[in-house]
């Protein structure tokens, strides 16, 4: 190998051939271009005519240059040029590959895996035993040294965790290490406790090299309220030049589909590691937000779930008498306004209007009678989870509401008139409050001494009164009563909402009581004391890539652990539900600071990029061929063969051959247009293949072209003659017209809405078939090692899919039209999954069909072979993508087409082919 800069040559001696170029120059110069022989009767008239000039007998200099270039390229090409030649020094001894495996790694996890693969390849060549260890998922003890090939096969199973390594566990683990080994450490670029200890421990055993991604590490803090707006803060590990990021707020829209509700840019000032911005949203929209994320970063640190603390409750205030203008302090709502204004959104209006806005709480201050219609709507609203908070007052005391029998919108029956204590005309002292009992939601609130109650409405003694009373006066008469009603509740304060009957509204206790009743929004996070003894159930968890997943059957966690707020294997970050509220545990806390990992100078830090050797021979030789082709054109032009009508046509054909024609993807249907009838007509007047719109224009275009190619092959080879394929929008289009749906899975595909899932399930149950294609050739290997595979799992979870198995060799798909054993697309070989056959020992009971649903047609076929690309044709009918290499590749494409033909045959003919085995027997019987 002889190198010049970044280039090397495998056969440098051939370069001596370049010396011959000047000789070639002279030779080419001497030879004029060859003449054309023409038969021409007019030659008699030409005899004796001499040429004026003798210039063209020499080849022009630029043509010479072109030919020299071509020859030079040939010589260079055969000399074997190589870009980035690598001189490797083989290492020796065992090798430990250490991965942080935290959320900080997730942003470029595939590149890390690539890098590890390269390390393993190298180790395999050197025959070194290797152990791959993930700091967040430590092996039992010691190092599991194995052959590098074994690790290569297991590499796809590594997954980063959404938390940082545990310092204690690491310390324990390092104590079990023994022997000498070198370490390659793939750091996430983030400092964490125990990292320096681990480094020194590893250095005791041998050389340590560190690999770090140069890509900036960004994260975001949980959102918090700042002056009525949502304060968002983005962090980065290393201060750098000014950059911008986009924060996206995601939540469910009114149709129940998750989508980005708002986007806000945030700019890092140069040298700063924090960037903050405010997001102002209408409360309706704000309460829908379920998480914030930095767009374009796939990492748990860049995602911040929101919990109830971001939600501001909507409270509707309605007073019975609004006729006393000007007397603000006597207004029944004044103190409620003061108490609730900072923490809740207040609505005022008539009762019927307010219920339509569906607030969280409706406060009725001294409203006695409600019309039957109002009462009914109010009851409906409460039963669906509303909180009706009523305050007593002169009107309520004077009315007949809930006297003889309990009003549905009152927690208790009331005695007529109420009572007054401690007034000028009564004997007793004004009453104080009794400490709150244990069952009361107010339990634990301190009762100030100066709260006095002068008047109240009295509850009728009832058997249920003791249960319903949640606060009482010192003499035991109920002050606050509560009744559950459906999912909601009705609460009655037996005093007025202003200071007329008691001093309760003047005290801080009033605000706290409202808070406990969940009328107003609580402060951001409950403290440790409040969390002690509670149990929280995870509802959704974030994985290291920042994807939200159902928690499934994860066990509940004690509140003490949640109070520490350090995510770990037992406490994955996510959304936890308690008794009456939800808490979000994010990877990044409110005061987390991202500190970059600092490595001592003695440690060599490398990037993740693998400088791969690139053999340039093919390219250089291709360039030589291209130059020769240009030379042919130029020579033709020089000798006059390119002029004139036919010559020009030939030249045009040549030029056309060089131009790649970009196929035009014509959308069968624009998404969202309400052309239902037209679609139905198009889809039903002929057989059509359909594909699901993924939102990725390129993928959709390929799917369309692929189905067009398959349709053409079907028309050529079978009696199925499909029309142009149709693109289907799952949200809007009716699916039942299509016998077959092709669904390419992309990592960024939005989840369909519940309505769309209902349609999909109905489609699958009534005989439709969906071909899921993850296009990564990887789905069957480890149950979703790729982003598409994981997305497929999420997409398919709500679908009604039967148990699956890799396609058995005797499945009807292998013989519906062609006899097939492989099902390659552009990728070859991996398993394809279909509905599992019934167990062989299961007997078919009378009236209980096993596979007879849908005529034995499997409702889904799942694979990752990227069939559409193998099928895809452009507007001229030529294949859009190369498959494999050479003839074997074309063979593979042919098999891919055959698979498509078999699949469509299977969809359209059901179990016809599998019934064919009975034909001899049937014929036999007919013969008798």
């Amino acid at each position: 190998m002889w190198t010049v800069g970044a280039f090397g040559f495998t056969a440098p001696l051939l370069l001596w051939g370049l010396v011959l170029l000047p000789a070639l120059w002279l030779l080419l110069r001497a030879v004029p271009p060859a003449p054309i022989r023409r038969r021409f009767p007019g030659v008699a008239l030409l005899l004796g005519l001499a040429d004026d000039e003798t210039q063209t007998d020499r080849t022009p200099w630029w043509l010479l240059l072109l030919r020299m270039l071509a020859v030079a390229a040939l010589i260079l090409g055969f000399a074997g040029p190589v870009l980035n030649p690598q001189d490797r020094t083989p290492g020796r001894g065992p090798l430990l590959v250490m991965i942080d495996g935290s959320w900080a790694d997730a942003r470029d996890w595939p590149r890390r895996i690539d890098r590890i693969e390269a390390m393993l390849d190298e180790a395999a060549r050197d025959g070194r035993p290797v152990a791959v260890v993930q700091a967040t998922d430590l092996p039992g003890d010691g190092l599991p040294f194995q052959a590098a090939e074994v690790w290569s096969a297991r590499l796809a199973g590594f997954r980063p965790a959404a938390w940082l390594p545990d310092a204690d566990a690491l310390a324990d683990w390092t104590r079990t290490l023994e022997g000498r080994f070198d370490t390659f450490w793939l750091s996430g670029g983030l400092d964490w406790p125990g990292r320096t200890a681990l480094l020194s421990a590893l250095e005791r055993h041998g050389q340590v090299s560190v690999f770090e991604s140069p890509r900036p590490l960004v994260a975001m803090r949980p959102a918090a309220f700042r002056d009525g707006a949502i304060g968002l803060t983005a962090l980065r590990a290393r201060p750098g030049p000014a950059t911008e990021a986009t924060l996206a707020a995601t939540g469910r829209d009114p149709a129940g589909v998750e989508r980005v509700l708002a986007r806000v840019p945030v700019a890092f000032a140069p040298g700063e590691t924090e960037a903050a911005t405010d997001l102002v949203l209408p409360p309706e929209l704000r309460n829908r937000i379920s998480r914030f994320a930095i767009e374009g970063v796939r990492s748990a640190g860049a995602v911040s779930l929101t919990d109830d603390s971001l939600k501001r409750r909507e409270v509707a205030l309605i007073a019975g008498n609004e006729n006393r203008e000007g007397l603000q302090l006597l207004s029944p709502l004044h103190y409620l306004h003061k108490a609730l204004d900072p923490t809740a959104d207040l609505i005022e209006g008539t009762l019927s209007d307010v219920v339509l806005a569906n607030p969280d709480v409706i406060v009725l201050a001294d409203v006695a009678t409600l019309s039957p219609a109002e009462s009914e709507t109010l009851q409906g609203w409460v039963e669906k989870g509303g909180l009706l908070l009523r305050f007593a007052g002169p009107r309520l005391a004077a009315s007949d509401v809930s006297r003889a029998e309990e009003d549905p919108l009152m927690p208790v029956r009331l005695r007529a008139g109420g009572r007054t204590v401690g007034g000028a005309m009564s004997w007793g002292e004004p009453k104080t409050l009794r400490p709150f009992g244990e069952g009361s939601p107010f339990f634990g609130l301190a009762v100030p001494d100066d709260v006095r109650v002068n008047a109240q409405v009295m509850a009728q003694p009832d058997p249920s009164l003791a249960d319903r009373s949640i606060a009482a006066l010192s003499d035991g008469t109920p002050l606050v009563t509560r009744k559950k009603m459906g999912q909601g509740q009705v609460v009655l304060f037996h005093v007025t909402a202003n200071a007329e009957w008691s001093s309760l509204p003047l005290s801080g206790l009033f605000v706290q009581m409202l808070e406990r009743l969940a009328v107003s929004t609580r402060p951001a996070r409950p403290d440790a004391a409040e969390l002690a003894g509670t149990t929280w159930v995870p509802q959704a968890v974030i994985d290291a890539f920042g994807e939200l997943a159902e928690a499934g059957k994860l066990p509940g966690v004690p509140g003490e652990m949640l109070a520490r707020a350090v995510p770990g294997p037992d406490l994955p970050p996510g959304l936890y539900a308690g008794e009456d509220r939800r808490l979000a545990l994010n990877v990044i806390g409110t005061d987390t600071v991202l500190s970059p990992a600092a490595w001592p100078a003695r440690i060599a830090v490398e990037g993740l990029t693998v400088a791969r050797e690139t053999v340039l021979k093919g390219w250089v030789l291709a360039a030589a061929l291209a130059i020769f082709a240009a030379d042919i054109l130029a020579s033709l032009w020089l000798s006059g063969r390119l002029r004139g009508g036919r010559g020009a046509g030939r030249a045009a054909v040549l030029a056309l051959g060089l131009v790649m024609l970009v196929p035009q993807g014509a959308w069968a249907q624009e998404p969202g247009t309400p052309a239902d009838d037209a679609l139905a007509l198009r889809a039903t007047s002929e057989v059509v293949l359909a594909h699901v719109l993924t939102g990725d224009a390129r993928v959709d275009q390929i799917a369309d072209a692929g189905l067009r190619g398959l349709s053409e092959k079907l028309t050529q080879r079978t009696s199925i003659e499909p029309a142009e394929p149709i693109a289907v929008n799952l949200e809007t289009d009716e699916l039942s017209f299509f016998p077959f749906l092709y669904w390419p899975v992309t990592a960024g595909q939005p989840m369909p809405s519940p309505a769309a899932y209902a349609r999909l399930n109905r489609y699958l149950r009534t005989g439709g078939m969906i071909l899921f294609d993850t296009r990564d050739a990887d789905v069957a290997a480890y149950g979703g090692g790729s982003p598409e595979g994981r997305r497929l799992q999420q997409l398919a979870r709500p679908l009604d899919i039967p148990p699956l198995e890799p396609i058995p060799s005797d499945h009807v798909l292998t013989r519906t039209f062609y006899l097939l054993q492989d099902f390659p697309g552009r990728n070859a070989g991996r398993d394809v999954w279909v509905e599992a056959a019934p167990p062989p020992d299961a007997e078919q009971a009378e009236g209980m069909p096993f596979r007879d649903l849908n005529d034995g047609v499997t409702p889904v076929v799942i694979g990752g072979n990227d069939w559409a690309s193998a099928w895809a044709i452009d507007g001229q009918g030529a294949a859009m993508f190369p498959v494999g290499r050479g003839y074997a590749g074309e063979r593979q494409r042919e098999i891919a087409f055959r698979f498509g033909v078999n699949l469509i045959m299977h969809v359209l003919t059901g179990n016809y082919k599998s019934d064919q085995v009975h034909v001899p027997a049937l014929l036999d019987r007919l013969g008798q």
Partner: protein
Amino acid sequence: MISAAALRARAEGLAEALPPLLAEAEHLAQAVLLGEHGRRRAGQGDEFWQYRPAHAGDEARMIDWRRSARSDAHFVREKEWQAAQSVLLWVDDAASMGFSGGNHPPKAMRARVLALALAVLLIRGGERVGLLGSDLPPRRGQHQILRLTEVLGRDLSQSDYGVPATRGMPPHSRAVFLSDFLGDLAPVETALTEAADRGVKGALLQVLDPAEEAFPFDGRTIFESMGGTLRHETLKAGDLRGRYLARLAERKARLADLARVTGWHYSAHHTGEGAQGALLWLFRALERGR
């Protein structure tokens, strides 16, 4: 000795070529014949034309007694006038006539169609038509057309340029020369003077290919005559175009001059155009000369 099978094959090949050529010529002649319905009048000839009453001056031997006996008047039997003019065609059959520079038929094809069409026209008009340069003296009748067709259907000769034949040209007859006149002009000149000496008048039609008029060549080229005897090499064919065209124009002028001196008519015809115009011109040229 030629075998029966080969003879038959050749005969069939010949028969194959005949009808199209003849059909094309007939078709062409049909278009011309329509307006020119001449000679339907009494004159010298063999065919019966009409009986007319005898008037003073008619000789007694002219009276047709058999007709007169059936009535009281005397009748004279008139015959149709037959102007038995001889027209001799010369169609160049040299190799140069086989040239075609594009999608048109070769010049020879056009020349033969024109000649045959003219022959059809003339024979229908009662003339005698013969072919110079072959043993086909002027004769009348449908059979002569077939004979002409057969001779014109033969292959081209090997020589590069044709020489007009003057042997067997009766005095005071008419002649038509169809050629590209690209070879040596001296024989043409001799033939014309000889014809003029015998009182023969006629027409020269120069049949040329459009490529010969345009000279659309470029680059280093070796030009060869159709027979391969003449050769000219040039490095820049495009440069020769002007001089070639000048020489061609000069040749045309010389031919026209020659025709004028000898009382002939001259015209040039291109195979890129339709044959109709050329046929009309030939027909008129013969009419004028009469």
